[in-house]
């Protein structure tokens, strides 16, 4: 790791100010992505601004038919939250599948979606839940937030403060883990709610997480695994690597979607 300076932000505004004080600075939350990258000398921020102790970014609240998860909330907190288990058990289930206990107790939902790893679990849920990403300066619809591999709509110094969504009537998540990393080789999050059916697919897309229009259409009239029979995914839009070819991932998208619907 290269030398770096550590700053602990006390508020969102403080964080933005601290970040702005140096050019090569970065926010750090759980550090579960950033720190290993730094240790491998693939990232070299001169300054780290820690967001984990900012009160307004912490905690889970359910009110007025809306769920709000602070960006600094850890995966373990989401997995164990009785509020989340009541409002959207599939999301608690998703959080419980991320990494291992160490990772779940450090990694945060804000860090995960800001990082937008194409194999991360949360982005699929954000798309399928039609979530809103609340930043220090605006609200961004999940559909507009994830813009490509490790790319988001965030400005360089913009902070994810929270995510909000309306609990779906039904939701399910099914993940096929990569045998090595146990990130999602393919993960599918399905929901049915006031806005209809939404299907978010992670791990498989060549451009990162995506919504599966054909599946949404098929499920709109009949929210059952059988409705997905015959719905295919074009392998040319999918990732191919040493762990799984695009054809294999296309198959996994179908299988995980069926199982997610069955679980919803």
């Amino acid at each position, binding site marked *: 790791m*290269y030398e770096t300076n550590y700053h602990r932000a006390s508020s969102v505004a403080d964080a933005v100010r601290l970040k702005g004080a140096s050019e090569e600075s970065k926010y750090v939350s759980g550090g579960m992505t950033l720190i290993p990258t730094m240790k*491998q000398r693939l990232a070299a921020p001169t300054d780290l601004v820690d967001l984990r102790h900012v009160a307004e970014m912490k905690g889970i609240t359910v009110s007025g038919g809306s769920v709000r998860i602070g960006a600094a909330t850890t995966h373990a907190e989401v997995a164990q939250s009785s509020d989340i288990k009541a409002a959207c058990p599939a999301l608690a289930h998703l959080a419980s599948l991320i990494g291992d206990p160490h990772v779940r107790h450090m990694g945060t939902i804000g860090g995960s979606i800001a990082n937008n790893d194409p194999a991360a679990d949360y982005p699929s849920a954000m798309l399928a839940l039609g979530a809103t990403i609340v930043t220090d300066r605006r609200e961004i619809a999940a559909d507009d937030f994830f813009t490509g591999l490790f790319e988001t709509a965030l400005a360089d110094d913009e902070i994810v403060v929270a995510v909000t969504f309306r609990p779906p009537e039904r939701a399910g998540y099914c993940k096929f883990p990569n045998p090595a990393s146990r990130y999602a080789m393919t993960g599918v999050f399905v929901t049915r709610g006031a806005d209809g059916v939404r299907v978010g697919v992670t791990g498989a897309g060549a451009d990162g997480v995506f919504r599966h229009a054909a599946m949404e259409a098929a499920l709109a009239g009949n929210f059952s695994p059988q409705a997905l029979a015959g719905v295919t995914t074009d392998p040319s839009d999918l990732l191919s690597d040493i762990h799984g070819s695009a054809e294999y991932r296309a198959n996994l998208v179908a299988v995980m979607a069926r199982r997610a619907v069955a679980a919803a």
Partner: protein
Amino acid sequence: MGVEGIGARVARKEDKRFLTGKGRYTDDMVVPGMKYAAFVRSPHAHAKIRGIDSSAAEGMPGVIGVLNGQQMLDDGIGNLICGWMIHSKDGSPMKMGAWRPLAHETVRYVGDAVAVVVADSVGEARDAAEAVVVDYEELPAVTDAATALRGGQPQLHPEAGGNLIYDWAIGTAEAETDAAIAAAAHVTEMTIVNNRLAPNPMEPRAALGIYDVGEDHYTCYTTSQNPHVARLVMSAFYNVAPENKLRVIAPDVGGGFGSKIFIYPEEIVCLWASRRTGVPVKWTSDRTEAFLTDAHGRDHLSTVKMAFDGDNRITALKVDTIANFGAYMSLFSSAVPTYLYATLLSGQYAIPAIHANVRAVYTNTAPVDAYRGAGRPEATYLLERTIETAARELGVSPAELRRKNFIRSFPHQTPVIMNYDAGDYEASLEAAMKEADWAGFGARKAQAEGRGMKRGIGMSCYIEACGIAPSAAVGSLGAGVGLWESAEVRVNAVGTIEVLTGSHSHGQGHETTFAQLVADRFGVPIDSVSIVHGDTDKVQMGMGTYGSRSGAVGMSAIVKALDKVEAKAKKIAAHLMEADESDIVIENGEAKVAGTDKTVPWFQVALSAYTAHNLPAGMEPGLKEGAFYDPSNFTFPAGCYICEVEIDPETGKTEIVQFVAADDFGNIINPMIVEGQVHGGIAQGIGQALLEGVHYDPQTGQLLTASYMDYAMPRADDLPSFKVSHQNTPCPNNPLGIKGCGEAGAIGSPPALMNAITDAIGNNDLTMPATPQKVWAAAHAAQ
């Protein structure tokens, strides 16, 4: 056996310090003035070095020195060598290309060391290493051994035309074998790939080189399985220092699996750099460096023909193997696909004609050498996949086909050198089938089908050779060293005992097992016995631990030394009690005169030896004896493994629903430790079959599996609870009747698992690792 003697399940003495974080590993060593090394490594798989500019690095904070390969050459440091001479069929010696500890002309794999920076801190050393500018002229690379043999491919070493190191054969004459195959009623032919593995010990490699200018003496702390061999090789071949000026210490070592047998550039460089810079120099590998530079294992491509007569008896076996050696010949590399592989190709079967041909090949990849099992897993995988396939082709049960061909009388001379001394293959087969409820499999399969799952069962009957090895025999086969072992038993004046062993423990539990041997002999508590190993200044010359040799060879040496101590102790006791020496028995911590109530406590015997006030006439004082033990044969552990799997046809995911191991390890000193070895071995074998595999980009030679994000290691939840049992036939060739257990699990398990998966999906065309993607594709192709 007593509660602490031979056969007792004694909890491991060493675990207290390991489990409480009090182990002392090389990286824990701190000496005054110590500095840190970072290596500049090649980012290219193949390139000429046009120049190295270290001027910027030299000026960076904390930097003490930046050293390169030309300086090393100027200082007379020699090439790394392979210590086992193999001759090709045409009589020519193997073609060994030069391996410089720091490359100064050509780099041949990604990770090849080019220069070293010594600095005040690890961070500063790494910062400066990045600032060393190496001017490379990139060359085309080849990573696949079969490709490297073809014409027009990149050439790695001028010494080895066509990248061929040797073209070697063993066994029955080829023509005779061909004739037997031509006359056969049935021939099973297969192409067998044994995937390349990264060893992944929990503790990465490390070295601390300390040059003492006052004494003109070097000390090297390093992660070695065989510190004496390290000293011998570093002194005799690399000219680091004469042996009496070089102390090698391998303290606690966190696993090796073979990868820490070999001498690598880094320890040599740390010693040399310490002298060059005047400061002690420490280097500790990180995980990606380990993936890049630890010697890999396996990587064979073979074709096999197994011929049967009308009665389903094997009449001939013909094997052609291409072994990928990587960019350089590592210390034991040449022996692995020859004398540790082809000599085991008879398996548990009586095969009248066996011909094997092995070509060893250079490629632009990390060096390949012994990895848990070393050659025997490759032989077992090839044979056991083939005989299983033959059973399917012949329409007979896999157990019946094996039974029909089992060797049943001993000793048995195979056509490939080995002379099996003892075994009962049927016993293990029966035990395994019973434990696995083989007969009930059909019902379980039907039940699984009802749940949409494909269930399969597979077996593997392995044999391996341990206790390497009779020195004269291996010498005649090309080994550069003898493979005996040494021991010294020191009884202290108050009766406590130190055993100095040339074996090295890096997870095997020697501090417990070896102490049990002593406790058993004299009836003293194991806490009064200490095992000393891993330091060339403390322990007499020894050969180290690999090939499951610590029991069969290392403990046999201890037995010999104990015999001498016991004989002298009896003389002293007889003298003290005025009895006849032949009437003395030593047990329960005292010497007794048989049939009387006369006793002398053990400590009194020891004390008498050292006060020397009242010893038999002419006897030297002291109670300390040494011994060297050279085995008279290999030992032949064998067994039967059965694996049952369930496959999700929609995803290709394999779940291992049961795994049964029935082993013959000869006599067992500590069953708990033996079971632990079997568990670990099976986990590694399952890792190979299901998860692990080193991938290089075939064009660029970049390592694609350089971290755990991409290299899949077995985790606890990938594995079932293993059912382990023993059907032991004592080894007739060593005093304890031990065969060895350290590698069996890794040897026997991969074919059992692959036979089960291919059985489940009804498609035999599947290579390791059987990843979900491959299993899914194979299952679909079968439909």
